[in-house]
């Protein structure tokens, strides 16, 4: 009897510790990024790091300005959002409100499969399809452009947008719809005038999380955007994103050097951006529910 008490005490302690482990891990991630990243700011001003226009990490003297990388990320993200948001929200509406039962399940599974395709495979497919097309269609010297990255990233954001927006649409109370039908509205009028507005905060959160996904995407964007760390000139030129910079350069950065610290500092920025997006999206969803 007593032995069982002791055993249960230990198991329950393990459960409680595991329960709060996530908090500990998130704190640990931030701490370790900070620990390495802040060392850059011994020699570099934060304002120069963020607003500096030149990313020359291996020149002598090096220059660690990440403005071109921030703008590169913004450009690629904007392009991806412009594609992913209309298609994603439309697909969510169709799957949640219009598609008949069987088709609905098939479409949902299709979305899940899209979400499952590894980013390196999408990058590879992009390299052999979109990149050469881009070159021919726009008659440009290289198909490795911000736009190529945007197209593929849009497809990586869509599953997030579709599944979360679909959840939001699905959880609109049935009585709302019945009320609209009773007033003689068609199904589409009900969707457009009643369901969509009622689910708007969930849809907004879905869009935000989709964008968060795009900002953090690494492999596909590195393979498709041409990796040119200069100030972006437009959608049809090569750019370099924050994530791709870390992935491409960490292998060559000397551990304990300024370049190494600078890449961790970029990691801090990425962590903070996605942190802000996720918290805000959660608040948006939560406020509505209360």
């Amino acid at each position: 009897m007593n032995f069982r008490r002791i055993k249960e005490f230990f198991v329950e302690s393990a459960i409680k510790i595991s329960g709060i482990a996530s908090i500990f891990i998130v704190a640990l991630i931030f701490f370790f990024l900070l620990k390495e990243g802040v060392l850059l700011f011994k020699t570099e001003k934060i304002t120069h790091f963020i607003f500096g226009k030149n990313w020359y990490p291996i020149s002598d003297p090096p220059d660690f300005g990440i403005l071109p990388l921030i703008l590169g990320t913004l450009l690629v993200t904007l392009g991806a959002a412009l594609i992913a948001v209309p298609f994603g929200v439309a697909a969510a509406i169709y799957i949640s409100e219009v598609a008949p039962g069987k088709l609905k399940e098939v479409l949902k599974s299709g979305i899940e499969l899209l979400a499952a395709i590894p980013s390196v495979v999408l990058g590879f497919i992009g390299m052999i399809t979109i990149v050469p097309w881009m070159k021919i269609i726009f008659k440009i010297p290289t198909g490795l452009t911000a736009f190529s990255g945007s197209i593929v990233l849009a497809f990586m954001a869509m599953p997030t947008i579709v599944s979360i927006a679909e959840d939001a649409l699905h959880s609109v109370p049935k009585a709302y719809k019945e009320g609209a039908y009773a007033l003689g509205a068609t199904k589409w009028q009900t969707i457009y005038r009643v369901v969509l507005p009622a689910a708007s905060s969930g849809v907004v959160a879905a869009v935000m999380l989709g964008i968060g996904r795009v900002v953090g995407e690494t492999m596909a964007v590195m393979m498709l955007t041409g990796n040119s760390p200069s100030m972006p000139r437009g959608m049809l030129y090569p750019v370099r994103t924050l994530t791709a910079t870390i992935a491409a350069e960490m292998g060559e950065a000397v551990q304990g050097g300024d370049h190494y610290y600078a890449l961790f500092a970029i990691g801090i920025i990425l962590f903070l951006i996605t942190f802000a997006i996720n918290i805000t999206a959660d608040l948006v969803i939560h406020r509505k529910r209360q």
Partner: protein
Amino acid sequence: MISPRLTQKIAFSLLLLATLMVILPVAVVLFIIVKNGLPGISWEFLTQMPKSGMRAGGILPAIIGTFYLVLGAVVFALPLGVLAAIYLSEYSKDSWMSRLVRLAIINLAGVPSVVFGLFGLALFVGFFKFGASILAGSLTLGIMILPVIITSSREALDSVPKSFREVSLSLGSTKLQTIKYAVLPHALPGILTGTILGIGRAAGETAPILFTVAAFYLPRLPHSAFDQVMALPYHLYVLSTQVPNVDQKIRYGTALVLLTIVLLMNLIAIMIRSYFRGKKKW
């Protein structure tokens, strides 16, 4: 003035079109990779070492490497994730602590994969001095898939009816016995689904293993958990961007093997879910 019926017809057609635009690329990707990849697949391709700078031979070390990494990630993340889900579902209903944990999980799920790579590099490779190794890579991947496992396990536990717990408790069993005998068995399919999805995710990710384990070219099998290994997603990246003049068959073949593993995991998860949804009696 267009009639509301016609407007609805047009709107629904456009919605269907948009949905197809989202889903169709999945079919296109599968078609391209299967069509071009199948000719490259042979017994030798799957069971031999790469040769002549990866331009010939097979991809065995990458397959084995991915297998070890995924195994390590699951061994780490499954117990931790399930226990965490039990905590959230059975012990801390709606306290401020559970809200904090939930926020942490949401954030963990949103951390960019390359940032996990940085974290693994700083903590496991550097601080714990594991070096670039299977151990460091597995732990990094394990942390990355933790939110997937916690979230799906929690959903599975939450969907077990309250009455199951009440009956068990009223028979005099302790809380832990109730969880073990009356709750967990019914949540098992959901936990399994989440774990398989986590496996698929871990097998396909590249950025977290870039600096923690992945070897560019290492035509031998690992000797211990402290060895570097090749891995399928990184191998595909290397083949498609770093090595010129590779036979397309090898690139497509590698992509096909990777995609097969990842999609198979997802199909299994989908099948388990729909099978048990059909069987559910409550």
